[in-house]
Structures are given as C-alpha cells and as structure tokens.
C-alpha cells in the first residue's frame, strides 16, 4: 500500500499507509493527525486541509483543478507554489512515498 509522510509544523513526522483512492486529507483525519482540519469534510470548500508538497514530488500529484486553485487563495497560512489542498490529493500508485509539510495554521 502506498505511504504518505505527514510532517507537522513543529517537525514531527508520521507515516501512514494510504489506500489507493483515499485522499491525503481523509487518511490524516482517519488517523487523527493534528494539523489538518478539513472543516468541510473534503468538498474543496474551506481550504483548511492545506499542505505543502515537496517540490520534487509535485509532478507525482494529480493536476490541480480550478476549484482547488481558487480556494488555495483563501488559506490561512501563506500560499506557495507547492501548496495543495490535501482533500484533492487522491492516492495513486505513483504517489507512494509522498511527503507533505503542514502549515503553521489552517484557520
């Protein structure tokens, strides 16, 4: 099963097995990872599941759709070129080994 590593703002790292078809946000919430709020439950409506994808792994992630691009302009922590909403990062085999850094705050 592909794995994703979540790195909290204070540097704590947690690696999870994430089933194909599950989003990086869903796996985090299912395992009670702090730092991802996901207030809207994964509808790309709230921008509280913001993560930074490691630059060299950006190409492994699904292409960003307009809705996500738009909502990323409303994140509480600064948007960067490697910002994504983790509810939109649905696991594929090539995303195995993904590392996401969590922002200082989601709200």
């Amino acid at each position, binding site marked *: 099963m592909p794995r994703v590593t979540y790195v909290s703002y204070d540097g704590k790292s947690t690696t999870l097995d994430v089933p194909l078809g599950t989003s990086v946000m*869903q796996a985090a*919430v*299912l*395992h*009670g990872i*702090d730092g991802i709020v996901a*207030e*809207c*439950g*994964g*509808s*790309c*409506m*709230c*921008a509280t599941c913001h993560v930074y994808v490691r630059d060299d792994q950006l190409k492994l992630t699904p292409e960003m759709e*307009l*809705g996500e*691009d*738009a*909502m*990323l*302009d*409303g*994140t*509480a922590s600064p948007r960067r070129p490697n910002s994504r909403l983790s509810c939109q990062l649905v696991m594929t085999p090539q995303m195995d080994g993904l590392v996401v850094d969590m922002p200082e705050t989601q*709200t």
Partner: protein
Amino acid sequence: MTGRVVIVGAGHGGFQLAASLRQHGFDGAVVLIGNEPHLPYQRPPLSKDYLDGKIGLDLLLMRPETFFAEHRIELVSGHPVAEIDRAAKSVILSTKARIDYDHLVLATGARNRVPPLPGIELDGVCYLRSLAETEVLKERLAAAEHCVVVGAGFIGLEFAAIARGKGKPVHIVELTERVMGRVVCPETSAYFGEAHRKSGVEFSFGVRVARIGGEGGRVTHVALDDGRSLPADLVLISIGVVPNEELAAVAGLKVENGIAIDENLLTADPAISAIGDCASFPSRHSLKNPVRLEAVQNAADHARCVADRILGKPAPYAALPWFWSEQGAQRLQIVGLTGGFQEVVLRGSPESGEYSAFCYAGDRLLGIESINRPADHAFARRLMAAGRSVTQAQAADLSFDLRADAMARPAG
C-alpha cells in the same frame, strides 16, 4: 489553566471545542457529552456523499476513537443531559449521574422542525439531520418509487439532487414562492430552481401540505391544500430546525430563538457559554441582531473563540460567516450575512452557469453568493474578513481584478 470543562453536545461545535482546548494546551479535564450513540461525526456529508453511498461511516467520523483517549477527552455518548444545576455547577444526565463543571458549554444544536400534519407518524416519512435518520432515508431511497420533499431549503434540494442522480422521481412542495428563500437572493433562487427543474425535479410553490396519507401504516400520498394528491412512498420533511434551548431555559437562562449569549459567547451566567446552532448572538456582520446560524463554520469558530477565552485569551467573536451547498453539479458558496439586502449586483451571468451575486444594503456589502465561481468566494472571504468592500460598479465589472484587490490583504 486547569479545572473541568463540560461540553453538552458532540456535534461540530462541541467536538471542535474539545479539540481546540487540547491543541492549545488546556490541562484540565474535558468532558464531551453527546446524546447519540456514535463517535462525533460530520453532518454535511450526510446529505451529500454519505447519502449517495460514496463514503462510509469511517470517513464520516470527526476523528478515530483513539484520538479521544490520546487527547484526554472524556466522551459520554448516548446519554442526554436532563438538567443543569447552576447552583451546584453540575449537569445531571438522564441516568441521574452528576458531572461537575468549572465551565459549561452548551453546544446542543438544533432538531428538525416537525409540522403538526395528519399522517406525520406514517412509515416512510423521513428526516435528514442525524446519522440514524440518514441510514433510514438511504434505505428508503434505494427502494423508493415516488419521493416527495416538503421544503425547498438546502437539505431538501441536496436530497433532491442525490435522488435524481439515482433516477428517482422527486416532487418538492414549498410554501413560499422560491427555493432557499430564507438564505439567498431571488436571482440565485431562480438559478437553482431552474437547475433542479432541468434535472427533472418537479416543484409546487406557494402551496401547503394538508395531510400525509397512507395505507396499513405506510405513506402512499401527500395531499396538498389546493386539492392535488401526490403519490409518495418516501416523504422527506425538510422545513428547517428549531434550536435545542430547553435545557438552558429551564435553568433560568434567557432564550430568544436560541440560547442568548453576548459577543463573548457567554450567557448571563459567567460559568456557561453557548456555541453553534443553538446559540443566538450579536454578529458584527449582520444588519439585524441577534442572529442564530446553522453552519459548520459558525459552530467551529464559536468553539475556537470559547477555547481561547477559557485559555485566558478572551476576544469578542468576530469570525466572518460562510456557508456552502452542493446540489448535483452546482456549487453554492456564500460569505457574509445577506439578510436585509436591498440591491443585488451580478458578476458574471446566470445563463453562463457561473456568477456571483453581491448583496448590498445601500453602500454596505453584506455578502456574496458564488455559484460555480470558487475564485470569487475565496477572494470575497479575504475581502470581507479584512472589513473591506468593493463598490457596486466594481463588483459588476468583470475587468475589475477582484483577486488583486483581495490578495493585497491578509487571509481571513
């Protein structure tokens, strides 16, 4: 800070309060009391992906069971609170067990408004607020041949979109003349009414349900007061909710369409706060006060505000309200409180399938409804959170760069 915080209600607000207290280092006891048997779960997906069968119970939960032990949140599930003993500073459960508090937070939410109709007790009359109700509805929907929805609000319309997606005939009966009339401007009502009609939903506006008819205890039709009778084996009652304020009222706290709280979210008793759907409060974003909001954002932000106060950082509640709904392919996002608007300025056109409605009272921008225009919504949130506005002319002018204007401000 130490002491014991007791939270009555384990919905979005109650859960968020418990989580925020721990996240910010509260060291005392946290007791979260819910009257449903499940772990705290998210309600918005009930009328969307959960009803549609796209996600299971695991993804509905706020957090896994281990989260509560790890964060020392004592969950008391399935036992409603019967009484508040303010003098003794304790709550009394239906089991007669007493739980003492240093601070009590009422996050009791709201319950379905049930119309006093003949036949309301018939089998096949459904609701969509709790997980248990949704399980019943989901099962009934699978077998339904004729769905009648009473009330064209968010819940009724979200249900209709899912039912149509499954090929079920849906007839919505609405007392007023338009959909979501309590929440959105007439332009947006017209847009959504048309979108649902195109997907095959039938509407009857301006008509009352006279009674729900049945045979052998099961619903068979809905009789309208204009004499028509609609065949039905599933009737969804979605005419709104009433706040769960009785616990507070009986304890001598003021209620006024919800538990009355001040701008710090406190009741008149300094040891009792109220948050979320059950609370009636003064909002700096509203023309008319107090307001009572039924929204995840409001519940969660209320919770954060009370957590900060308990942790010694009190600040008046100022969060900007926002709401969303998903109805088939249509996405509605609202920021602000548009009640009392006088003018609506459209940015983009409803005919194109994406637009935003800027609602004004005079020069004051009250709120923005974005339909399939998430970028407008994101910018609108930044703009309004910063206490800023755009003029009506700027709002209507697609060449005016809303993004550049909003991005110059901090996020909200």
